[in-house]
């Protein structure tokens, strides 16, 4: 089995974000799925994860935050 594309310690990655404010680690070579944009990178895997850890401070989806704060 080939190594998982999300587990390559030497790989180049992106931090993606969607409309709900959810983040995803993403290999830089792969097409970015619809609904997602690049929030950070290209950079190392750890740098992308560090960015996510620092910036994704409220893990509730945006739609929930909006619905409950009206």
């Amino acid at each position, binding site marked *: 089995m080939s190594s998982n594309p999300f587990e390559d310690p030497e790989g180049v990655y992106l931090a993606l974000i969607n409309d709900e404010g959810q983040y995803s680690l993403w*290999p830089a070579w792969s097409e970015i799925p619809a609904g997602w944009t690049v929030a950070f990178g290209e950079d190392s895997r750890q740098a992308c994860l560090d960015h996510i850890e620092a910036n*994704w401070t409220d893990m*509730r989806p945006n739609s929930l935050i909006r619905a409950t704060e009206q």
Partner: protein
Amino acid sequence: MSQLEDILPLSPLQQGLFFHAVFDEAAPDVYTAQLVLELEGALDVPALRDAACRLVHRHANLRASFRQRAGGDPVQLVHRRAEIPVGFHQPSHPAGRLVDTAAGGRAVRAVLGPGARPRAARTPVNPGCVRARLDEDLTGRLASVLRARSLTLNTAVQGVWALLLAQLTGRDDVVFGGTVSGRPPELPGAERMIGLFINTLPVRVRLHPAETLAGLLERLQAEQSELFAHHHLGLSDIQRACGLGRLFDTMTVLENYPLDTAILNGRSMEAGVEAGLRLAGASGSDATHYPLALAVVPGERLSLRLDHRPDVVPHAEAVRLLDRLVLLLGAVAADPELPLARLDPLSADELVRILDEWNGPESPPVPGAAATIASAFAERARRAPDAEAVVGDGFSLSYAELDGRANRLAHRLIGLGVRPETPVAVLLDRSADVVVTTLAIAKAGGAYVPIHHSYPPDRMSWVMADTGAPVLVTDRTPGFEHAAEVVRVDEPVPADPAPPEPRVEVHPEHLAYVIYTSGSTGTPKGVAVRQCDVVALAADRRWEWHRRVLMHSPHAFDASTYEIWVPLLRGGTVVVAPPGDLGPDAFAGLVARHRLTALFITTALFNLVAEEAPGTFAPLAEVLTGGEAASAAAMRRVRAACPQTLLGHVYGPTEATTYATYHPVSTVSRAGTPPIGRAMDGMRAYVLDGFLRPVPPGAPGELYLAGAGLARGYLGRPALTAERFVACPYGGRMYRTGDVVRWSADGELEYLARADRQVKIRGFRIEPAEIEAALAGHPGVVQVAVTVRDRRLLAYVVGTVAAEELRRFAGRTLPEYMVPSSVIGLDALPLTPNGKVDRAALPSALAAAVGRDPRTPEEESLCRLFAQVLGLERVGADDGFFDLGGDSIGVIRLVSLAAREGLVISPREVFARQTAEALARAQGESTRDLGEGGLEMLLPLRASGSRPPLFCVHPGAGLGWPYAGLLRHLGPDQPLYAFQARVLAEPDYVAPSIEAMALDYLERLLQVRPHGPYRLAGWSMGGLIAHAMAVELRERGEEVALLALLDSYPGQEINSDERDVLVELLSAIDYDGPGEIGDVVEFLREQGGPYATLDERTLTAVYRNYRNGVKISEEYAPRMFEGDVLFVTAAHGHEEGGPTAADWKPYVTGAIHDHQVACDHANMLSPGPVAEIAALLREDTE
């Protein structure tokens, strides 16, 4: 003049063909390559014969035959003359037909006598064959793309073959055979020489997702041309050089023979053929021993021929593969700059089937998808308030009653500050309160955090701190550190009318619960599941008959989600099982008593029930099972015994809300394990390769899950969430499971393996990395690696800490099922070439014991004997006998073997001293306490230790030695004594009754420990004696802190398996007779006298004690014991209607906590079960 012109060695390919020809004479000769030319017109036979003879005369290789020398080396003999028959008969002489002689395996065989037969793994068979031709346009475009980049057609063929193989195997690094001409340009005349020079060599291709098609081909061509100088090497030379075995099992060949294609195409007949003779057609037949071989013939329309062994690759599959090859060649022609990761190698039809048809409707009808748990429940309570919601032995709650109780608790929680998403910890024994509490928390909007009662206190505290739960709902004094407000549900309920539904705005996206699982980063991770995930699970159409569902899984495992919410949110009934672990026989009673219609049972327990009472499930509409690799045999048994019951095989990680896929098991006739099926309603399953593309059916890939039921993520762990819950190419997010699966041809998922190191032991999901992190926290540990062997966790440690100390250290923070069963010290961990721990190279537990080397002859002898008895390669002088897995039988063998070498040691000394060093030292001591040969009434198995001692009472045979197996698992701190029958030391003694034995032992007990608290345990008949001792102690006003009964039943005949215990003891000295005393004594007499420890006298005593024990056990009338009982049921071999732990109820005032251990009565203290029993005893001591 000799008939022979020359004797030559074989070329590499000839060697290979020779091998295959000799391998099986009877098999069809698959290397008989024929080219049949159909000639029309008047054939000048003498001219053809003359031409053929000249050809054969000119080329020595066409006159060759093959023979094996006396020494076994094959040689080719070049004959001076060879006649070519032309006509209609079969050839009979060396050279054979007008073919490439070297390929003529039949000719080879003709000259071979019987000789040494090489062995081979595969039998060549005549291959199947599928063909395709590119059209002229595509052929032309491909040629111009290749020409523009100076790429050869051969490179393109090898490149697309590599892509196809990668897809088939799920790998990004592939090797296959490529055929080279074997005509080195520096050899004069090489191009014009007639004969077979080709050679098949390994081609290795590594694929990088970001590389373009053209980039791949250019790199491949460059790598291959660097190897050109080595093309003459035989495959076996290469295998020798690189030290690998079988290198590849597929191959490609570009058949660019210099045929005049114009003639073959029939365009210019006159060009090279005599007038009047027309070449009407040509057809070839070739064969291969490879499962797959691709031959490509250039031309105006590129021809592809895929030879396949039909026994490995069926025809339909070969057709699909060839289709994909054509697609790939088309992709090269269309856009050579396309990165490999964007290449879609599946056809549109295949994609539709895999992504859509096999995933069911994308938005299935999920009734009440916008609902919350509270709103879905309220709807049910409104519609049928009097329906039964929760029921158990002795209680029943209607929907209205449950609603009222949950509302009351919800208001209390809200009063304590619980708001939407507030974590609320729950630590409850199984009871209706579990349902009331979880519903109340859902009504308040909070997220329940169930805590497993077997967690060590440190782990409970850690979970409380990690969630920051401000409230803990429980039915006990918590017993661990926390900062939460405690709500006790075991307090009386006020009589005032229940308050109404609390008015809380709960959103379907709000969290419903957090369940912790093992984490590879060293700390557990909390899976945060939303309200809508629970509602979606409950709404699945598969649960139609799940009206009365058994709740028996621990609350802290996500099976409880199904067990609580599927019935409650569908208007059904939660049937609450009594607390404690359920054994196979408990299920039958519950099924009948509560008219159950469905239940979930873990794989391990399912297998146990299937083995012992497969008809248990017959009254159910459906039984669900899953969690570990399923046993097809167990499923077959249950299907056969319960033909009316549906059997659902379920699969799912906690992250996808309990169940993600489902397979209705109808027939289990197919070989291998049953599939895990297809995605549940609203959920989608994708099997993707390393480039994140769907793999074709049959190819392994990693399973990703998307859609309804996908949890929000890991509580408070954004980075961890972002690496597991990732963007989905088909919309939204997907969870990567780490499970390697494949699609079957009919669209069912089949589980293959884990992609990472996660393991399951006894159904528990475990990350070895978490255990490694915990062990690394000990100051004496330098390096550590944890692996699983034979379903046991092994820790390999570099450092200074003792094994038992490390296990105890681990037990303070890890649940019992995560504490390694063995700790093996190493000087260094083995590493792979790139510096990672080489887990495959870690020694097996039975090869590693690393104490210091022996220094004296006595130590040396004892170390050698230890190793011999324990089955280890070596044992150090300071390694403990029991730490390395020694047991009572091992003690007997050790003492016997030592006696043969003139070393006098007693079993008692082995128990007391444990190491070769200490036993050797004893040899030199002038006054030694040999005890009574290990037959004394109170045998100290370990006299030291700070904890209150544990006293174990002998089973029917009278020896207490089997309890020695507890030593290594209870730890060095735990003193352990075993009572043994008086008859062992006083052969004429006959115990009058169980109570007399108890009083006899009590007297001795009080000498060692004058006052309580006492801890007592007894296996089999020993349980009766321990019970009698406990009764007596209580009546004298002493405290009995523990009474543990190991598969011991009052008022029963002693299980006749006792005799097996005797046989087992005797088998240590190679006795394998029936166990009758006369026979045993006869055996010993024949053997002579080396068995000082197990002499005739002892055996007679053992036997007599057993016989007498049967009698007095039947006579024993137990009195009432004031206190609780820890009971261990040997779950195997239990018959319906047989005795159970409940038989003790009349003789015990407190609770009977029954634990099931998967073992027979007779082997309860064998290595596996004894570890589990020790864990239970230890837990109860703490």
